[in-house]
């Protein structure tokens, strides 16, 4: 039996998604662009998912574009939305704790001469909406802020920041990487005042290789792939129908009980924190009002990777920092004000819809045992 607590890296696809993907591969294999009936069926399947995703974030389905995943969505949003049109605005505002698919895209723009302002958390680990708003000026082309930080679960003040920015600088575009918030915290695109929102399939019990980008009507984004003009020219290439359908099935399954799952995650987080508070010298890096789905802790003295492998032997799977960084030191945690010792020993525990209390008890016990045996060995 394995205990999977790395749901911020990826989730186990839900049964509904697996079945939908299989059925689609088996019997709905048409190319949505084909004029005949098989093509039409495939297109209807794709458009159904577009509608469903649209409904979950109160967006017009025509504003949902399918991509190969959130990395592509983030790249498209950041790289495609600036430098268009006549008036060249030169400034971009973001945070120092964004996902690399936003951050590295921003670096590309920096190389091209854009001024990128990355707001770091203050000494308490907070990023206030005022600080974001104050960084924006009339020369700002884009603001990109994630909804939930993927390493700590910190919930960004996106709504208040974007609201203020749109009031003060209506021409400034707003992008939100909502990957770690989608299907966990209910939100609407209008409530976020977001012009663009990135979503991922495999973080919500759907398949990998599929994501979506919401683009508000009237916003023009430069495509980065060229070809048959699918997705209204924004993302050429035959639609990945089976994975789109799989993502749709996952959305359908998960959208039913977002609030109930959130409350359950809160209870689990509280229970886990209580358990590890009984252990000596374990630091909780996630703030109290962070998303309960992501809990970041440090066990000083035990390097993350060693702890990870220790727990792995018991069939417990967690992550050190984010899964994308594969052992690299997390600059995000440093930005959140963690000292090197805490960064080196940071563990990310991320809950999923199947997580139960016993999983977290086993983890807490495992961490306790690791402290006993690993610290002694040293």
């Amino acid at each position: 039996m394995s205990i999977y607590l790395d749901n911020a890296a990826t989730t186990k696809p839900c049964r509904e998604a697996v079945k939908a993907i299989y059925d689609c591969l088996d019997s709905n294999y048409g190319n949505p662009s084909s004029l005949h009936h098989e093509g039409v069926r495939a297109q209807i399947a794709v458009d159904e998912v577009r509608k469903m995703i649209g409904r979950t974030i109160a967006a017009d389905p025509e504003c949902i574009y399918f991509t190969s995943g959130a990395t592509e969505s983030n790249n498209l949003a950041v790289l495609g939305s600036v430098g268009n049109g006549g008036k060249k605005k030169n400034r971009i505002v973001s945070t120092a704790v964004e996902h690399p698919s936003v951050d590295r895209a921003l670096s590309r723009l920096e190389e091209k001469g854009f001024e990128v302002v990355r707001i770091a958390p203050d000494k308490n680990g907070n990023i206030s909406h005022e600080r974001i708003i104050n960084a924006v000026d009339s020369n700002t082309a884009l603001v990109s802020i994630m909804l939930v930080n993927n390493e700590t679960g910190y919930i960004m003040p996106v709504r208040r920041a974007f609201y203020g920015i749109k009031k003060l600088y209506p021409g400034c575009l707003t992008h939100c990487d909502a990957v770690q918030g989608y299907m966990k915290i209910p939100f609407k695109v209008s409530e976020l005042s977001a012009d663009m929102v990135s979503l991922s399939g495999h973080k919500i019990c759907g398949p990998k290789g599929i994501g979506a980008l919401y683009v508000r009507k009237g916003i023009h984004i430069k495509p980065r792939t060229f070809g048959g003009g699918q997705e209204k020219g924004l993302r050429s290439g035959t639609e990945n129908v089976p994975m789109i359908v799989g993502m749709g099935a996952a959305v359908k399954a998960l959208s039913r009980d977002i609030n109930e799952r959130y409350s359950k995650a809160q209870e689990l987080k509280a229970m886990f924190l209580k358990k590890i508070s009984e252990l000596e010298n374990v630091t909780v890096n996630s703030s109290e009002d962070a998303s309960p789905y992501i809990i970041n802790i440090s066990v000083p003295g035990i390097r993350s990777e060693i702890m990870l492998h220790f727990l792995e032997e018991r069939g417990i799977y967690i992550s050190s920092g984010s899964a994308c960084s594969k052992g690299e030191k997390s600059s995000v945690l440093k930005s959140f004000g963690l000292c090197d010792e805490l960064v080196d020993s940071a563990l990310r525990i991320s809950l999923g819809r199947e997580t139960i209390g016993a999983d977290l008890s086993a983890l807490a016990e495992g961490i306790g045992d690791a402290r006993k045996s690993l610290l002694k060995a040293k």
Partner: protein
Amino acid sequence: MQRRIKMQEIILIKYGEMALKGMNKKTFEDVLVKNIKRRIKSLGKTFITRAQSTIYIEPADEGFDIDEAMTRLGKVFGIAALCRAAVCEKDFEDIKRVACEYLADTLEYAKTFKVTAKRSDKNFSMKSPEICRELGGVLLEKFERLSVDVNDPEITVTVEIRDTNAYVHAGNIKGAGGLPVGTSGHALLLLSGGIDSPVAGYMMAKRGVHISAIHYVSPPYTSERARLKVEQLCEKITPYCGSIAFFCVPFTKIQEEIKNNCPEEFFTIIMRRLMMKIAQKIAAREKCLALITGESVGQVASQTMSALVCTDAVCEIPVFRPLIGMDKTEIVEISRKIDTFDISIQPYEDCCTVFTPKHPKVRPILSDIEAAEQNFDFEPLLQEAVEKTELKIFNLDM
């Protein structure tokens, strides 16, 4: 999103033209309330009451989505203006408190504002100008960026003192206007898939007409996608129209026989006459009192005045053409507003463009057309088309 202010929020709906009705006003109100209920039923429980020419929608469920309700109600005809408002006690201290909290987001970034007060309860201790002055002062002090502009304010903070409660809101939003759908009879819309016909349907629904739609398909000359496109158009106008019965008529044989038996220059005009005949048969069956088309005089050869005369000659019931005097640009503007434009311009062949003559008759003469139709007895085919017509219902909350 993260921090939502807990306070009671309701929706106030003001009706427009209906308020001018005399004896019938109650009938119109009843239909409007029924339409409103249907439109928001799926969002959760509400209490709907009416008083003083206003409809009050009070959410009874915790999770009631007021944003969504506002969006939906913005498409309900018969509503002149609507707004979301916070409920307060009829006590100035409470009004101040609620205004500061409820309008915080709106006023934080606004530059100019004014306060207006409506006092339908004349027993309230303060008079309207006094309420405006006092509340204006409080808000000015609290929100730094604000200044007063009584002529052209960005935000109009409104306080309404009514019978049981007081309400605070940041001004009305314009409603869809018109009359409640269902108060003006039932008509059948000829829906082609182009830009005009959905707009025509929208405009008649705005006058309170309950719409059904009829569409003609000619496979293999027209594709499944052409029909899907029209179904998408139905979906788009359903929020305005309430529900739409969509009739899809197989038209291939008729078009082929027109081609085989009639002079080419008359193809389109004869086709339109036959479409009208079928539409009337369906209209009679479905108890529709009139037909609606998206024709605009002079737009294409089949829409010249002479051509319209020839088409109308087969019509025994009225044909409403709400776009008759409009320019294409004006029609496009409405189609963008109701969001049908992008669907309408999808490039699928519809039956109107099948067998289009190279040189259609611009000024057809009725007797020539009638003579040309004598070459073939279309009646059995028309009957067959009506029998094979398929029905699909488009409903709200689909």
